């Protein structure tokens, strides 16, 4: 058939008319609209019976009670536990995000052995038996060759039965190298030891204080037990208490305080002494306390017959408001007014520990602040500060050491300190790299991420490169786990039974019990069980020190009769504990509070932060409630709350005063390279009036290289730019910042 124009057109029209009359177009339109309204990939959560399980959150040392809402077997929400003494129903952003950690993609699902290069993230899955026997074998070789002291352990938490079990393992094995992640609590502990003659973590009765003088403590930025602090702040507002925040940057704490006094960074101790000067000069101090219960206030003759200046003379001679004004940049009249306000209060309380207190800080500063509290009598009383009575929380039976352990445990530790001085973690990398002392043959890291959290990340990695055997006991594929040779995955806090003792700074002895709210999601183990298994595999005296079948049995034994209360209520408060009064409180040689301890001299000792005059700016890292900067990295929900003036795409913003920006020819959003003597990084600048000119700031918690796409490779890790600075007396890290420079990128 010949197709001419006419027949083509009529055929076409015929087909069109026919199709239009058929149901086809209507059917297609209908299908299309149904198709666009279908989202089979959008999950429909299953319904079921709802239940609530109470437990405790151990994501930070805050120790808040939580209530987990479950539907059948799965958890749908974590909320604050009403009636818990620490958080009274409140909860923070991290605590709320816990389920993202439980079900998240960063969990390690099974024991792993490295097959690629270190940090290359290539693994082979191994069984628990294999992993344990392999580690035991290595340890056995070291032990029989008399090198038991050349292994070390870093624990993330300072207290708690798992941490103690870890220490016990090292002791029974014969190593003096137990360390924990340090914090300002360690510095406070030393200050108490020297001045109160009592050892203990600090308890701050903040709720009963009415003028709170904070030397840079981020009271509302995650210091101490964060939720407790929010509650305390609300109580202060209602009671008309006054909060005075002293720091160079307008943090959330400073913004919420009644007064923000900007101070030259690192000069807080001078201000504390300046305030003391005014108190003494104007006779505003608590005379009764100072006269009857203190020592070293007036000048005295030491046992060696030397004349030593007392606190009064030191302060009067060296810390007049004018001198202090020159150091701190605060007006002399403001210092005098500050001192008068502090003295006039019924329950004044000064505190230190910068930001969240994750850097131990200067001992001289802690002592100056503690002395200030003593001057107004705010030690060991309501609304004051005191060392928490060291009740026997856990009762352990002695380790019966064999000859190897007895020799190993008595060696000096890695950093040349007496055995089991747990706080010198910051000195480990330098000790390894210097080559002095003995080499480290194996390192065990428990729920800690030193490759990320320790100052000067590059040096830490260089040091880790020298350790032939690195084992990480972690729940997440963090930077340290990724660098390890063997990874032993832990249950996370929602899957395990564990005690959470003494929330940081809380003035009452509280222990909470973390319970297995969920069945383990993956092939993981309780870190306590892992340690017990490892000890049993080692055999001999090491195994004998771990007679328990599992961690739960161990916990029941060491907790004793407290366990029943813990199981029933979820927490235990030592109701008998009372603050010892002034007569009984001090255990110094004189039995009084010691203003001038022999171990350390009171005075302003500037921390010698790194960098010379080629670095004109001061870089200070800061902490915020919206970013987790420690062992736990930000879950996706939290990163979502981070402002776009802190992180934009993958770039960190460096906070800078507009004046400083102008003199460096920088404007908002400019790309810059920030450089310090320890490293450099690329970022952008954010102009902010709330920061002292000449100072720049970076938040902690960004710049991860491990974990998942929700947090990895976003922004700058402040720790890579900062070096640790040892406190001259305590040896702990006291670096509050570093000198830096900015250049346009």
């Amino acid at each position, binding site marked *: 058939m010949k197709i001419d124009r006419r027949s083509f057109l009529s055929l076409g029209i015929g087909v069109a008319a026919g199709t239009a009359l058929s149901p086809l177009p209507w059917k297609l339109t209908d299908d299309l609209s149904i198709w666009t*309204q279908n*989202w089979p990939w*959008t*999950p*429909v*959560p*299953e319904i*079921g019976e709802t239940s609530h399980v109470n437990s405790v959150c151990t994501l930070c040392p805050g120790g808040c009670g939580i209530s987990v809402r479950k539907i059948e077997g*799965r*958890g749908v*929400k974590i*909320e*604050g536990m009403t009636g818990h003494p620490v*958080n009274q*129903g*409140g*909860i*923070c*952003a991290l605590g*709320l*995000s816990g*389920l*993202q950690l*439980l*079900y*998240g*993609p960063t969990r390690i699902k099974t024991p792993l052995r490295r097959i690629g290069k270190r940090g290359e993230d290539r693994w082979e899955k191994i069984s628990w038996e294999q992993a344990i026997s392999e580690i035991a074998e290595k340890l056995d070789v070291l032990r029989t060759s008399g090198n038991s002291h050349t292994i070390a352990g870093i624990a993330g938490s300072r207290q708690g039965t798992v941490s103690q079990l870890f220490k016990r393992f090292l002791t029974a094995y014969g190593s003096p190298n137990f360390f924990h992640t340090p914090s300002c609590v360690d510095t406070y502990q030393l200050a108490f030891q020297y001045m109160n003659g009592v050892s203990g973590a600090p308890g701050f009765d903040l709720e009963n204080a009415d003028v709170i003088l904070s030397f840079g403590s981020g009271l*509302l930025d995650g210091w101490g037990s*964060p939720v407790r602090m*929010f*509650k305390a*702040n*609300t109580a202060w*507002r209602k009671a008309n208490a006054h909060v005075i925040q002293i720091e160079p940057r*307008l943090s*959330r704490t400073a*913004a*919420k305080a009644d007064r*923000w006094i900007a101070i030259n960074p690192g000069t807080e101790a001078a201000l504390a002494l300046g305030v003391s000067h005014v108190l003494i000069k104007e006779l505003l101090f608590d005379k009764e306390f100072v006269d009857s219960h203190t020592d070293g206030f007036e000048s005295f003759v030491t046992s060696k017959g030397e004349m030593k200046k007392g606190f009064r003379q030191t302060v009067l001679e060296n810390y007049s408001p004018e001198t202090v004004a020159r150091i701190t940049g605060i007006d002399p009249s403001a210092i005098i007014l500050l001192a008068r306000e502090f003295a006039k209060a019924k329950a004044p309380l000064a505190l230190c520990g910068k930001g969240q207190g994750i850097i131990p800080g200067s001992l001289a500063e802690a002592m100056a602040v503690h002395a200030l509290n003593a001057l107004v009598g705010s030690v060991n009383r309501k609304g004051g500060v005191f060392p928490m009575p060291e009740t026997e929380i856990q009762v352990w039976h002695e380790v019966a050491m064999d000859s190897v352990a007895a020799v190993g445990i008595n060696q000096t530790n890695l950093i040349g300190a007496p055995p089991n001085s747990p706080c010198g973690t910051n000195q480990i990398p330098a000790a390894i790299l210097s080559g002095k002392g003995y080499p480290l043959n194996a390192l065990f890291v428990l729920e800690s991420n030193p490759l990320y959290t320790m100052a000067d990340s590059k040096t830490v990695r260089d040091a880790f490169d020298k350790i032939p055997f690195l084992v990480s006991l972690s729940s997440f594929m963090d930077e340290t786990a990724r660098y390890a040779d063997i990874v032993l995955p832990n249950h996370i806090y929602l899957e395990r039974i564990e005690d959470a003792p003494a929330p940081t700074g809380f003035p009452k002895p509280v222990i909470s019990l973390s319970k297995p709210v969920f069945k383990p999601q993956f092939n993981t183990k309780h870190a306590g069980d892992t340690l017990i298994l490892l000890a049993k595999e080692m055999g001999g005296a090491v195994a004998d020190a771990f007679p328990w079948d599992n961690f739960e049995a161990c916990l029941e034994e060491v907790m004793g009769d407290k366990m029943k209360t813990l199981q029933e209520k979820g927490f235990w408060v030592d109701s008998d504990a009372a603050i010892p009064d002034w007569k009984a409180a001090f255990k110094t040689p004189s039995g009084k509070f010691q203003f001038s301890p022999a171990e350390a001299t009171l005075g302003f000792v500037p921390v010698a932060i790194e960098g010379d005059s080629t670095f004109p700016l001061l870089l200070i890292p800061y902490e915020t*409630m*919206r970013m987790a900067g420690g062992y736990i990295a930000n879950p*996706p*929900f*939290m*990163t*979502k*709350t*981070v*402002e*776009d003036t802190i*992180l*934009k795409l993958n770039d960190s913003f460096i906070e800078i005063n507009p*004046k400083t920006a102008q003199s460096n020819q920088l404007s908002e959003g400019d790309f810059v390279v920030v450089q310090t003597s320890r490293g450099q990084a690329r970022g952008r600048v954010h102009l902010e*009036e*709330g*920061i*002292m*000119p000449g100072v720049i700031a970076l938040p902690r918690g960004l710049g991860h290289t491990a974990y*998942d796409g*929700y947090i990895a490779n976003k922004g700058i890790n402040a720790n890579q730019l900062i070096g640790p600075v040892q406190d001259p007396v305590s040896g702990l890290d006291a670096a509050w910042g570093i000198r830096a420079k900015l250049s346009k990128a």
Partner: protein
Amino acid sequence: MKQEHGGNGTRKYGMVIDLDLCTGCGSCMVACMAENNVPFREDETDKLKSITWMRVYKLTNGKPYPETDICYLPRPCQHCEGSHGHSPCVSVCPATATDYDSQTGIVSQIYTRCFGCRYCMAACPYHARYFNWYDPIWPEGMEKYLNPNVSPRMRGVVEKCSFCFHRYQAAKDKAYLDGQKEIEEDAYQTACTQACPAGAITFGDLDNPDHAVHKLKKQPGAFRLLERLGTNTKVYYVSSREWVRRAGDNYLKTEGPKKVV
């Protein structure tokens, strides 16, 4: 049906947020995300696309160092009543996907009706509405935590704060089963209110003299956002600082901030 619980049955749920107590910690934002299955993506730094039913804004007084001051302002949907329920978004929705519920005073959002025209987003003076530009994707395993009381949304629809309406429904059911006529104040609380560690958010029936919000909204220093637009919102803010109250609307230099009541 409308008046099943006796009385006239109408309530006017609202919030009073004390900005003097708010510390900007972000708990409310996360509590909201966790409660309401709010999706997240690898990059959430584009805040126009980042879905946050509750968002905490940072306000500054604009003064140079060291007189600078900061205030944090949590912003849920303001649940505007307008005059007689004519809230800005409801008035423009061509699909009746958003509606003003005169029983509770809650502005609803019905995802299956929404076809994504986003008129409501343009109309909302508070940027409280968000469009799903992408399908929500939870990493493998994470969908386990999804709350069955709130349906996850799909690409192409608008979503916003519902004052945790599912909690209202649950409280209403419970009250009915228990034979109570009224929903107790603490039986229905939003996730953000419950989570706020500072106790800055108070939630309840604004018209019920027994509820705390009834009194709190009248305290000195109370204000609402963009009062002069006539949106008649149900979220009240309280601040002792005048510059904060001024920041709640666009005032002339010579004007003082408008007082509520």
